């Protein structure tokens, strides 16, 4: 099947997620949230959300608790670095692949 009947004649892109593929596969370290340290979790109200603000990949939700979409999270670690209570730590992905194997 070719593209003869494709609706466009030019480079005309429509928006959707994952243009770069499942960018979670780029990750070397995985962010892990400790709810006991997370400010909105502890207070159980909208607060802080610095991780949400600075996430370059828009994979952290502004919810209680903040959820991290690992399908696309590239593991940059900015959330962990900027978290004022160190509630997010970066863990070597190898730990999880071991887990997956077990």
């Amino acid at each position: 099947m070719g593209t003869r009947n494709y609706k466009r004649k030019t480079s005309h892109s429509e928006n959707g997620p994952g243009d770069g593929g499942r960018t979670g596969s780029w990750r070397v370290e995985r962010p892990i949230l400790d709810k006991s340290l997370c400010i909105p979790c502890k207070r159980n109200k909208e607060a802080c959300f610095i991780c949400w603000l600075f996430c370059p990949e828009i994979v952290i939700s502004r919810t209680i608790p903040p959820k991290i979409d690992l399908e696309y999270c590239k593991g940059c670690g900015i959330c962990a670095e900027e978290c004022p209570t160190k509630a997010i730590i970066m863990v070597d992905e190898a730990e999880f692949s071991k887990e997956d194997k077990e």
Partner: protein
Amino acid sequence: MHIIEDGNAAAALGVKLCRANVIAAYPITPQTPLTEKLSEYVESGEMKAEYIPVESEHSAMAVCIAASSAGARAFTATSANGLLYMHEQVQWAAGARLPIVMCVVNRAVGAPWNVWNDQQDSISQRDTGWIQMYCADHQQIIDSVIKAFWLAEKVSIPIMVCYDGFLLSHTFMPFDLPDQEKVDAFLPPFRPAYALNPDEPASLNTVTLPDVRIDVHGELAHGYMEIRYLLQEELRASLAVAAEADKRFTEIFGRGGDPYIEPYRCDDADHIAVGLGSLTYQLRVSVDALRKEGIKVGVMGIRFYRPFPDEAIANALKGKKGVIVFEKALSYGYEGALASDLKSALYEHLAGTGRLPLVQNFIAGIGGREIRTDDLTQTLRAATQSRIAKEPTWIGLKL
């Protein structure tokens, strides 16, 4: 209504009649009076359009590209180095399939600086994916501008309307000024397939991969090669659409016919002179003179250079002994581009007949060197008698 005006005014009046929405221009001789005229129409309120006095030709075409992408009927005009400076944008407009119309007021390119006429500027843009029309008089200029907007919007391909600097741009000639109602009947408002719009967002001209790729709806979309193939395919097919444009134009305005080529005394001729633009009308004088001597010669003007009307040209030259190509441009290092294209068309369509006309190539009027009709007559006479030279021969050279 018949009026007497110069060629640049003819072009400007055509653009006004076509109700262009956005005009962008940068001054360059001999184009300047055309866009000055448009700025007068816009500033006086005679024409409802946005006139952008940009800071370069590169930006002039950028404005047209963006305006057309946003749904406007866009126009610009330039000459010589201005056209060369826009080259990147010229390619872009074609690849983005935007129906921009641009007048190229033909002028020699530097170095050295020269403001006078030849056609090296537009010929050097031959391979950009634009349609190129060449005009031989003021009536053709205004009519071509009107036809160009219709054709460009029909096939989504930009068009250059080329006419000779000074020889046409700055000389006065009578021509018929079409009625606005008739132009409106001929040319409906521009309705693009897509125009940039927040309610229907799309990202245009994004990086496109060598291979095909699935889109967000799961359909297989083109790769770069398919998009470029479609440009070539639809450029070739636009010849037929140009004939349709000419037919509609003739119905409404009562003039037209011969959309691709303009033959003069060719039917019984043994030798045909071929060229682009005003030179072909000058050659008519030589043809008339030689006919009086009993030499059976005719002249054929080519109105569409891209897409190249190879079949129409070959058919018109079938059975002729010789073809004498006069050009105001050169593919440096070989010969005139038109001569090469013409030979290719003859080979393609007539090789099987076993009778290929002899093609000779003459270069004239480079950098505005005067082309004397006597010289043309002499050259034509000599070329009908024997093969003058294998290499392209320069007329009027004083080395």
